[in-house]
């Protein structure tokens, strides 16, 4: 029997590989450093708010959300989920949180603080403190609070204001948000200083903030290039390359250089009309969190001519803004982080699309990246990455005549996503996309 090698239809960017490798390198270096006794902090994805502080203080950060995804993909999450269940945590809770809670229970109660031997990639050590974030969902800060049951470590929940779209434009509102953010961050810095026993290097923070902003600006530009037809860069490359910008993984100067290389490569493809897949028949937008464990699925879709041109609002860099006049690094960081949350508000208000802060951007994406359809991936235990999807679907068809296909899954229970079933739905959905393309033409759309 001839063993068929899995065909890689997607034309991956060369410049993606070093960016992806950097994540693994950083992680492994971090593990080594921690094993050598360097203190580690467990952090939540905090959208450019807390990370620069920790980076400037040279603190190793471990992200249990990511570790949860790794554990799930490697098939070892089950025992931690079972432990969390036995501890009395309801099973509807976020799969990553249950994995971490089960892990913490195992590490602290059973192994008295030793990293579990079965934990992949060095596991997660008992942290110095826990930095959670209110952004995106409640579970993220409640989960770290619940960890107090197993570990007596301090928790700092980073505030993340989320005003109403119309309310944001009330006079003075933005300034109040900035004021909250800056004061809060200043207190956080003081807290971190106490925890690690050394003072913040403000020059380093200044530089870190600037680099973070610049890295994300370049990364933003890279993604703007994907508007071209055919789309030069697939979502898979976005997901592989994003951690350096989103989590500030690795050395920021190095990251900046790598994203600049990526910009060159993508621009080159645009100029030469090179697409990310051989035969682009359909352009898609993907929402929200990808099935990390089954990304080869996208290659199968690519064989059918599905090019994923844009995706995952939650992971995208903020719309660039000019912060050169802002001298206080804490204010620059605050404003940049807020930009992630409110960057689209102005447009959203103009278009009267009020059903959720992560919903409007999909309208913009579908229009500007000229998408024929949306692939939606609701996750049963991740409500914050799934709740807006019915509205997105509704809004896309109503305002732009762009149809959506919804395929369910979960962040840790990988049995819930069935690639075969999903592919079976691809063919009929192509007919739907063809149909709506006609409708859009009739209505005078330019795609």
């Amino acid at each position, binding site marked *: 029997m001839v063993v068929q090698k899995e065909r890689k239809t997607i034309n991956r960017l060369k410049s993606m590989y070093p960016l992806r490798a950097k994540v693994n390198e950083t992680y492994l270096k971090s593990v080594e450093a921690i094993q050598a006794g360097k203190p580690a902090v467990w952090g939540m994805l905090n959208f450019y708010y807390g990370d620069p502080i920790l980076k400037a203080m040279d603190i190793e950060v471990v992200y249990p959300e990511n570790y949860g995804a790794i554990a799930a993909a490697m098939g070892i999450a089950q025992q931690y989920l079972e432990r969390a269940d036995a501890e*009395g*945590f*309801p099973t*509807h*809770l*976020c799969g990553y*949180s249950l994995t971490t809670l089960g892990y913490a229970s195992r590490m602290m109660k059973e192994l008295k603080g030793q990293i579990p031997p079965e934990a992949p990639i060095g596991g997660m050590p008992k942290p110095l403190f826990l930095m959670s974030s*209110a952004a995106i*969902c*409640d*579970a993220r*800060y*409640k*989960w770290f*609070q*619940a960890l*107090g*049951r197993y570990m*007596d*470590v*301090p*928790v*700092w*929940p980073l*505030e993340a*204001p*989320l*005003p*109403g*779209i*119309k*309310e944001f434009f*009330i006079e*003075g*509102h933005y300034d*109040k948000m900035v*004021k*909250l953010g800056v004061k*809060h961050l200043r*207190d956080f810095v*003081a*807290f971190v200083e*106490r925890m690690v026993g050394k003072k913040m290097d403000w020059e380093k923070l200044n530089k870190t903030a600037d680099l973070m902003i610049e890295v994300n600006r370049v990364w933003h530009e890279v993604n703007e290039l994907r508007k071209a037809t055919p789309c030069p860069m697939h979502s898979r490359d976005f997901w592989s390359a994003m951690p350096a910008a989103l989590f500030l993984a690795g050395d920021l100067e190095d990251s900046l250089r790598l994203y600049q290389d990526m910009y060159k490569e993508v621009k080159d493809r645009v100029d030469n009309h090179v697409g990310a897949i051989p035969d682009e028949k359909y352009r898609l937008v993907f929402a929200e969190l990808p099935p990390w464990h089954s990304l080869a699925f996208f290659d199968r879709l690519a064989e059918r001519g599905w090019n994923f041109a844009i995706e995952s609002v939650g992971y995208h860099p903020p719309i660039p803004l000019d912060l050169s006049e802002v001298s206080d690094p804490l204010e620059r960081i605050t404003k940049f982080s807020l930009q992630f949350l409110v960057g689209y508000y102005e447009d959203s208000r103009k278009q009267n*699309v*009020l*059903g*959720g*802060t992560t*919903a409007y951007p999909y309208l913009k994406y579908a229009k500007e990246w000229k998408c024929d359809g949306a692939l939606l991936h*609701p996750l*049963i*235990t991740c*409500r*914050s990455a*799934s*709740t807006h*999807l*019915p*509205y997105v679907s*509704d809004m896309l068809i109503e305002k732009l005549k762009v149809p959506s296909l919804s395929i369910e899954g979960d962040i840790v229970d990988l049995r819930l996503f069935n690639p075969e079933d999903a592919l079976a739905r691809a063919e009929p959905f192509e007919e739907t996309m063809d149909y709506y393309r006609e409708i859009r033409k009739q209505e005078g759309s330019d795609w």
Partner: protein
Amino acid sequence: MSGRNAGLDKAREIYLNRSKRVRELKAAGKRIIGYPCAYIPLEMLTALDIVPYQTCGDMREPITEADRALPHSFCPIMRNYLDCALKGKNDFLDGMVTAHSCDPQEKTARVWESYTHYPYFHFIDIPITIRPEALEYFRSQLNDFRKTLEAFTGEELSKERLEAAIKPHNRQRALVRELYELTKPSPPLISGTETVQVLKALTSLPVSEGNDLLIEVISEAKNRSDGPGKQPTRLLIWSSTVDDTDIMQIFEGKANVVMNESCGGIRAYRGEVKFTADPLEGLADYYLNEITCARTFRQAAPGETRKDYLRDLQSRFGHLKGIVRDWKINGAIMLLVRYCDPFAFEMPSLKDYFNSIGVPSTYIEYDYTTGTLAPIRTRVEAFLETVGH
């Protein structure tokens, strides 16, 4: 209808037909503004002569319309509230005010605004901690709320008007606490079911009418001879929401429910708004600090560098100790609403707390439908049998 319990009868009537009074008031020219959550400072509505109306759902209502906008794996209470709204049950409202208390409240608020067309809609953002800067941000949010209310009504929400409104709302809180004094005796003078009806009635009436109702009910109950029978177990129900008599009756089948620590119970009435130079400060302080909903992140000492789990539990749940002692509670039910994250994360820690103060407790989950009530009855009874005397 017995004249003896006229107040309780009135409450039951209102419970069964909640929007009757506000529709009358609307016809008489009053403005009615809806709200879904206990974090909305109702004083600010009362101050402008607006009648606040809680836009509750109905456990018996099959969800059909909400599916357009919200997935199934979502807080069933907010799905229910939205469903009722989309079915036009609140069409008499002049507007809605919503808040970022928890994710489902925030997400439903956006969708609610998109799919309905009230003349007025306002969303209040709420920070997650009770740090000083968070409190200040919340105060500024209330100030923004004031601005849109003024624009909508064309009237000034002055300090005097606001203080005049805080008084009857504080009075209502005090009266509800007085009502709960009636559950201290053994047997209690008022049942959990009756209390749910009274409190639900309060969310359907202007504050002054609600206060009158409370005064009537309290005085009747003090003199009644037909109160609940004595049961060996005196229960505390802890939940996000218990505002329906069908579920309360399940608990009261073989026990006395003497305290309902939830929305629909005492949660919105535990403290008092202080009078401050800027009344919005007192309001912000009250609503952020005194509402014991799991969505607010409380710590023994914020940013503490040496954390103590037991001290942390005390800071989060310590208010229950006095309740247990004063109401002679010997059993607690942690009633979780399916898909509720903030309360779900609390449960194991809360159980630890109950264990530390010697109160037997159990978890029960419900999904705000009547279909799950029969199995809940078995769980409640089995729990009572384990506590059993």
